[in-house]
């Protein structure tokens, strides 16, 4: 398959890599990037526009938005990663059953996935949150659950594709037993795709979770989580744009950067 200028100029890739590195730094050592306390309130210094003292301005309680954005990277990325992990683990389990199991199992699992696909993802998430109450954990699990059918589909088709690949047949001819083939060839080859899915999925999970926060179903205050910050700031959009702009910017930037990286890796995997 021809991919013309492939993923665009290298500059974009470098920028994305920098964004991801910065985010990781924020998530691992937020104190180094922004030494302030993200929860420290200064009620009388609320709603200050961006300035040298407060790069991203201050929020309604006088907290420094930049500090909160930096400290929010941890929970926000964690939501993305954990939700994706849940989705992937479930997806791999279902997909493996369907892709490698006997035909009837494949049939059953595939029908189940079809049904889950007919549920809008948000509804699955909503039901789950209503059952178990809102919060970071539930919204993470909810996003994970809602994304699992998608992953399962891909894993299944990958399993089927790899299982039927000529090189697996070559291994049969060489006399390798099934478990060996699964461990040495099928799983590692599917893992490549999974890795790409994870990178792509993390970004989207963050967007998902932020939407749940908007509906009031996300992180609990005062956690500095991007989606929650965004939805809190939205109220003041008319008088304090910075409360909405900066958290929105990092959400879009991180999701986009993850996508670009994922696509690049995907291109490598496919190209080889």
């Amino acid at each position, binding site marked *: 398959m021809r991919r013309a200028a492939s993923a665009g100029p290298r500059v974009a890739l470098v920028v994305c890599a920098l964004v991801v590195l910065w985010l990781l730094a924020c998530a691992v050592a937020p104190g180094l990037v922004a030494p302030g306390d993200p929860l420290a309130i200064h009620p009388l210094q609320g709603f200050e526009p961006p300035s040298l003292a407060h790069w991203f301005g201050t929020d309604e309680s006088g907290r420094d938005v930049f500090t909160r954005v930096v400290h929010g990277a941890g929970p926000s990325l964690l939501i993305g990663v954990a939700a994706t992990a849940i989705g992937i683990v479930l997806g791999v389990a279902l997909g493996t059953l369907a892709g490698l199991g006997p035909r009837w199992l494949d049939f059953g699992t595939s029908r189940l996935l079809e049904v889950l696909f007919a549920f809008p993802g948000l*509804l699955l998430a909503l039901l789950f949150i209503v059952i178990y109450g809102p919060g970071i954990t539930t919204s993470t699990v909810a996003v994970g659950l809602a994304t699992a059918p998608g992953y399962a589909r891909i894993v299944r088709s990958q399993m089927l594709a790899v299982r039927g690949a000529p090189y697996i047949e070559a291994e049969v001819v060489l006399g390798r037993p099934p478990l060996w083939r699964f461990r040495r060839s099928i799983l590692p080859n599917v893992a490549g795709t999974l890795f790409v899915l994870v990178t792509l999925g993390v970004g989207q999970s963050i967007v998902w979770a932020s939407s749940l926060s908007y509906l009031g179903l996300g992180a609990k205050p005062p956690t500095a989580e991007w989606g929650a910050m*965004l939805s809190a700031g939205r109220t003041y959009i008319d008088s304090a744009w910075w409360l909405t702009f900066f958290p929105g910017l990092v959400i*879009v930037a991180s999701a986009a950067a993850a996508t670009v990286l994922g696509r690049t890796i995907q291109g490598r995997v496919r190209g080889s």
Partner: protein
Amino acid sequence: MTLGPGTEVEAALESAASTRRSGRGAVRWLSTRLAGLLFVLWAAATLTFFAIRLIPGDPAQAILGGPGSQASAAALAQARAEYGLDQPLILQYLGQLGRYVTGDFGTSYSLHESVVQAIGQQLGGTLVLAVASLAVAWVLALAVAVFSVRAGRAAWAVGNGLEIVSAAVPHFWLATVLILLFSSTLGWLPAINVPGPVGLVLPVVTLAVPLAGFLGQVMRESLLNALHSPFVLSARARGESEVGVLVRHALRHAALPAISLSGWAFGSLVSGAVVVETIFARPGIGRTLLRAVQERDVPLVSGIVLVVALAYCLVTVASEVLDRVADPRLAESPR
């Protein structure tokens, strides 16, 4: 709300591919699809029925005007008896299935009207919104794809960037920005649902832009493949102009995967509608759904789930039919 260009989109493409692979005769194909549809509806009803029982809160209380009311014990018991909530779960389940078969979806606890009527009032708005968004997303995606494929390296990068960024934008954020810009500041477009097409503009753009990002990535890739395929080269060798190559050959190929994605796109639009309808104060089943879940309105939630599942299935079947029209290979090849 939409999900990853590499995850759900790919999953949707994969599922489309699997139905493609089983390319069969039209009658048999249609009958399998219908059987599948009935199965999905049944399973969706069953899943919803049991999932809703897990929601904390007493349905009898929801019937009697929600948790703020001071319903008496007698009234609660009476409501339970009236709605059959005192029967064993399995009987309730079978009874509900039976009523579904006869087209009886019950009465909404919170809206005090029949579920069929309630959904009937709301469905139109959401469908118009979804269809318009799908159409706009299509046009946008196609425009960006054509632009970025045709206009050289820089345009490629721009198109790519546009698509990735727009796919990463949360609906509610985009809606806020659009309202601030076009309604509050410029005053060009209404922020709320007003009669006529102007009221649709902002909500449709909000839903269409992220979707266009996803569709665009897929379309651009297939457009590119088509433009580099030998049959395009041979069309050029026949003296076809660049416009002719696009119109007569490449676009149709570019459209194929996007058609396959329509079912998925519809699902994601319904999810997105929950947010968009709330922000733009539009009537619709997205907003009704949110409210129904929050008010523990069991019949309404179940009804909406069924209708959405049905709509999803129908859109999927329609997109497959369209797929077969656009790609006649599917209808005949006994591969």
